[in-house]
């Protein structure tokens, strides 16, 4: 029995996401759990939980250096506000409904995130595995097309 009104949380958050994901990003900064999680899933409905974390890698191709890999210190994520969060939220709602998810949580960093730190988190819950995987892939593909976030390398 997939939820027709999935729980959706989508936020743009300053800096690295971990360990904020479990605390501040979801619970702090004015986010009201009561409003967003007003329709909790019945126990036993969710059969698959899929969580993706994107982490800043040390090596990034530099166009200014003929495409060679150079060593990074960090990425600076520039967001076009508030459109970035609006598009992130709209995408989250659309994917959650298209794939009949139980819930979708998407968090993306704004500003500087050091190598090895988390800049993107996506958590999808659904009755079955197949929809969770399809939803995750679709979300990330669309994120890279439609959500106005750019990354600028900070070279070592």
């Amino acid at each position, binding site marked *: 029995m997939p939820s027709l009104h999935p729980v959706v949380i989508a936020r743009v958050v300053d800096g690295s996401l971990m360990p904020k994901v479990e605390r501040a990003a979801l619970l702090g900064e004015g986010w009201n759990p009561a409003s967003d999680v007003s329709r909790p899933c019945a126990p036993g409905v969710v059969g698959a939980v899929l969580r993706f974390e*994107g982490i800043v890698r040390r090596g990034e191709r530099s166009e200014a250096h003929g495409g060679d890999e150079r060593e990074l210190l960090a990425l600076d*994520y*520039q967001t*076009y506000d*508030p*459109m*970035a969060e*609006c598009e992130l939220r709209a995408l989250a709602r659309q994917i959650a409904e298209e794939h009949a998810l139980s819930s979708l949580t998407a968090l*993306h960093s704004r500003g500087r995130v050091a190598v090895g730190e988390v800049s*993107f988190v996506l958590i999808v819950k659904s009755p079955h595995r197949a929809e969770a995987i399809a939803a995750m892939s679709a979300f*990330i593909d669309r*994120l*890279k*097309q*439609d*959500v*106005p*976030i*750019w*990354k*600028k390398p900070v070279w070592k």
Partner: protein
Amino acid sequence: MEVDVLLFGAAATREKSDRVTVVVGAEPTVQDVLRALHAQHPDLRFALPPVETGRLAVNQSFVRGGHPIREGDEVALITLVGGG
């Protein structure tokens, strides 16, 4: 009429600026602004979408084609995003 177009990412880096200005006729549309960007800022072509199907953000929403651009609208070129 003059329209300021906000730039981000690689487009802003190429122009060394966070915006460019284009000159368009009266009552311009998204297509008119895209056509003017192609003609007046050829350096940006690597980042510009096709005039017929391309989109701009106007007042922070994606719009295309014949959508009108009015005095005071916030117009932005949103291409080559790189989140995730």
